[in-house]
């Protein structure tokens, strides 16, 4: 019996698998089965043959299924990203004036389109009053929950409401007159003008909005994650069959740990937990905040889930901290949205937040232990934290400001001092990647605040000079650059990580080699600092590009909404948050693939790292806040 089998095995080895299709194989099997009956070959023999053929059929089935999933995943991913961002841009509020100002003297209507409007003589004002008695930045007309307000921003001639000079923000009601220099403006509702009045192309006909099903989007995300989990299970199955060279169906079914629990559960439990978390989150936001939009959250869950399942394919227990961080992150997301809802409070809170950030940095510098060349970890018993990740949130918070405060406090002094302190601390911790991220965040935030290109040029040249000085006095930093663009020549020492990253990304190809099948995870920091190459290896270049595009679109979304949001506070915060996400993606993606020197930053949402995941969700909250639907209960 044994000899017969070894013959068959030998035969199948030398024979090329592509010679017989599954279909042929199955027919073959039926014929054999019939023959066995007709020729009355002993019963046991035909059963053995049945198992042998069955095993072969199963192997083909696994191969085919894996192949189909690999081809299908990019398509599904594209659908998710496309649907999500179409829904985001479709639901943008149209440029309809909120109220009108009627100029009593010139008898013209001035549309007020934004939630915060600067009034002044300068061309960059939202409401331009061409009158020498009006200051360049005269006043700010803005809307809060309680209604419309106007405040004088240190103008020469002052602002009068109903002929009374104002000192602090003053509420306005319909019919009130506002005197700015020589102009007398009356607040009018938008219906109060007649139809043949020309309204300077500020209104467009309301487009018919296609209502988008947010549940369906989340469901698609779930399917994507489910397919990834199934793929990781099939990869384990295939590997086991291949490595142990098991050909018999009976033996395959005997692999108890594969078919009964353990591995199957291990592969799918990550998915189940994400599934439960995502729907809990969905219904919580629906019920408690009555928010209807869920696109940004969906894309966040999509990205976080991909990272989690890749980590989870090595064993469910490895995802515990990451899953906990996801929950904390989602909580932080909701909390922050609630916190910055009240702009008055937020503006006051900024000083507290700045102090907390400084204290955190100081604690970090004193207590942190050196770990992998940088001192940015604090160990609290079993928990390890990276304070610099949380300071990113504080940084965005401190950088933002409402328009009226921006116009009165024009200098950037405090913010520059705060940023310089943060970046200096990061240098002391030798966390150069984060220092870069903070610097780019600072550039965007300061430009959003002041609009001065001079500040940008000055700070860039300061940074370049600083970099040169550091390279001169600390030559070991320059060593990081020594292997840049020649990692393969140093593949056993300094270029070890990046050369592996490139080799395994190339191994993945366009469609990847399957979730859980990767080898890069075994290299140091394979799922954190080298997450992007790991994604290329396991899911393929197409999905990796898709992930990069969705990260880019998250950041771009901050720009799209920068004009529509309810305050410059939100637009500055969201752009800074977008810049941080983007610069971190740049450093990660290009650093791990040798386009930049390796700096060791995490890929937003995807990399393994609790602190990083929490801070990314918190940053997403700032972007979410800039969407004017977020605080609107009447929308949809």
């Amino acid at each position, binding site marked *: 019996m044994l000899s017969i089998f070894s013959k068959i095995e030998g035969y199948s080895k030398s024979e090329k698998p592509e010679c017989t299709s599954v279909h042929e194989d199955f027919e073959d099997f039926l014929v054999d089965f019939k023959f066995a009956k007709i020729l009355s070959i002993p019963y046991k023999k035909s059963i053995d043959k049945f198992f042998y053929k069955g095993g072969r059929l199963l192997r083909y089935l696994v191969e085919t299924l894996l192949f189909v999933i690999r081809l299908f995943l990019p398509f599904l991913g594209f659908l998710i990203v496309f649907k999500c961002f179409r829904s985001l841009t479709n639901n943008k509020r149209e440029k309809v004036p909120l109220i009108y100002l009627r100029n009593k003297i010139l008898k013209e209507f001035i549309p007020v389109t934004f939630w915060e*409007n600067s009034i002044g003589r300068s061309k*960059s004002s939202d409401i331009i009053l061409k009158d020498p008695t009006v200051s360049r930045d005269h006043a700010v007309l803005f809307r809060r929950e309680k209604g419309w307000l106007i405040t004088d921003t240190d103008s020469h001639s002052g602002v009068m409401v109903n002929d009374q000079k104002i000192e602090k923000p003053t509420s306005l009601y319909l019919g009130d007159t506002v005197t700015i220099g020589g102009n007398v403006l009356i607040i009018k509702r938008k219906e109060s003008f007649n139809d043949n009045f020309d309204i300077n192309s500020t209104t467009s006909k309301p487009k018919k909005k296609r209502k988008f099903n947010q549940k369906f989007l989340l469901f698609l995300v779930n399917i994507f994650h489910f397919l990834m989990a199934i793929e990781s299970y099939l990869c384990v199955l295939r590997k086991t069959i291949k490595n142990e060279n098991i050909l018999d169906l009976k033996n395959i079914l005997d692999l108890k740990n594969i078919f009964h629990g353990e591995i199957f559960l291990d592969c799918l439990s990550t998915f189940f937990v994400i599934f439960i978390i995502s729907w809990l989150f969905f219904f919580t936001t629906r019920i408690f905040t009555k928010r209807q939009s869920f696109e940004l959250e969906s894309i966040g869950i999509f990205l976080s889930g991909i990272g989690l399942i890749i980590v989870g394919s090595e064993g469910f227990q490895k995802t515990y901290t990451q899953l906990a961080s996801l929950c904390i992150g989602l909580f932080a997301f909701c909390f922050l949205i609630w916190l910055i809802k009240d702009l008055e409070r937020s503006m006051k809170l900024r000083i507290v937040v700045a102090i907390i950030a400084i204290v955190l940095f100081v604690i970090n510098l004193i207590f942190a232990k050196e770990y992998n060349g940088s001192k940015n970890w604090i160990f609290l018993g079993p928990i390890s934290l990276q304070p610099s990740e949380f300071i990113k949130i504080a940084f965005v918070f401190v950088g933002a400001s409402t328009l009226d405060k921006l116009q009165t406090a024009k200098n950037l002094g405090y913010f520059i001092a705060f940023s310089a302190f943060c970046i200096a601390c990061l240098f002391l911790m030798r966390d150069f990647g984060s220092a870069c991220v903070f610097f780019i965040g600072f550039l965007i935030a300061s430009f959003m605040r002041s609009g001065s290109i001079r500040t940008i040029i000055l700070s860039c040249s300061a940074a370049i000079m600083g970099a040169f000085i550091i390279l001169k006095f600390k030559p070991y930093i320059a060593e990081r650059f020594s292997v840049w663009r020649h990692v393969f020549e140093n593949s056993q020492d300094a270029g070890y990580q990046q050369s592996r990253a490139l080799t395994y990304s190339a191994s993945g190809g366009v469609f990847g080699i399957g979730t859980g099948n990767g080898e890069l995870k075994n290299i140091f920091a394979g799922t954190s600092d080298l997450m992007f190459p790991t994604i290329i290896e396991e899911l393929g270049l197409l999905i990796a590009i898709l992930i990069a595009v969705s990260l880019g679109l998250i950041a771009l979304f901050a720009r799209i909404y920068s004009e529509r949001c309810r305050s410059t506070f939100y637009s500055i915060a969201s752009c800074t948050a977008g810049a941080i996400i*983007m610069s971190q993606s740049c450093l990660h993606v290009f650093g791990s693939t040798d*386009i930049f020197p390796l700096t060791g930053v995490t890929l937003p949402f995807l990399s393994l790292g609790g602190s990083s995941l929490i801070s990314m969700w918190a940053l997403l909250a700032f972007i979410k806040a800039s969407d004017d639907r977020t605080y609107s209960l009447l929308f949809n």
Partner: protein
Amino acid sequence: MKNSRKRSVLLFLLVSFFLCGVVFLSFELCINSSNWALKPFNEHLALDSLANAGKIFDRNSVILAQSVNSKRIYNEDEQIRKALLHTVGDENFNISTSLQSKFRDQLFGYNFFMGIDSPEFLKKRRDIHINIDSKLCKIALSKLSGYKGTAVMYNYKTGELLCMVSTPTYDIKNPPDLKNKNADNDGIFLNKALSSSYTPGSVFKIITAICALENMPDAANKKFTCNGAEIINGQRITCMGCHGNINLRDGLRFSCNIVLGNFAVALGKKNMQNTTASLGFGKSLNIDFVNTEPSVYDLSADAKDALAWSGIGQDKVLLNPIHMLTIVGSIANSGISVTPKLIKEISGESTHNKLNFKQEESKRYMSNEIADSLKEMMLYTAKNSPISSLFSGSDVCAKTGTAEVGSGKKPHAWISGFSKNEKTPVAFVVVVEHSGFGGEYAAPVAAAMLNHLQN
């Protein structure tokens, strides 16, 4: 708020930068994928890197390497295995210029589309047919008789590379233990024909002669007197004999250092540099995706002294064997140099779809007249030297060389030349390191190769 929108353009630029970078990364990955994926440290390949790879054939369809039952099997003749080691290559990428390193993607059937885990039906393994004649290589290896060095031969009309042997070598079936450093194994992974350059010694006199013919109208008749030793430009040059007042033709024949040294000085630094540059010094040749080590003609700042020495191929002159092959090939081929071609074709296992290589254009190195007169000079040199007895035919044009390498070591023996015969239009270059006279050590190797071809 209008300003917010305007100022957020910076973020837009950042996003654009990121997306452009991703496009660049994808592009780089597409271009280099097979090179990057098929690295020796790739764990995905650990089990079967060449276990199911395609075959390699020589010009007579002798199988040099093939995979049978998930094992890489090489030619059964040990001498052929040794002679073709540097052409075929090992399995661990040690010999980086070899076929099994450079064309591993073709042999392995890697395609970027599905990555390394392509299903079997998507893998297109290809066989490589090369122009090398394995028997000729075997003869060359045996004639090198244990010395380090290299022997190359090619068809100067078609560019087919017939022989390329580099020593030291080893049998791929029994790789040597390279952990203990042994002087015998120095450069064992180097294909010396492609990736090394030597002091040329007297074979460089051919190049000095080309320069003279190009730049001196009366070069053929100009005479210098050799008294055995002379101080030229402050540098004492010695000669093997005392040749008297002779012209360029006889200078080449006797390999007279003084005549050629005088020619170099008379030509001047600029002419010598122009000629060597136009002959391809300082540039790599591309031989089927392998870049050769460039030859060097570098006159240092105190060039006046060095000029005479450089004219006879000493001092800082370095010559790559394959490059020298193209120069002698161009003399034989009326001044036109054809780039050597190693690969004949790469075919699919079943469909035989040929992969065409972009053939590098043949290049004119010198005018027809100069090539003809040099051909005559080299024929005259070969006929009137003891090496003529080694060659069976009477149509060999060749120049031997003995390159002093200093530091008490024996000189490198060189021969470079070609056969004028229409039936065997081949050029050859042989270098035998640290052996002795060119006529004694290098010429027999070339003669054995040529005689094998002619019979």
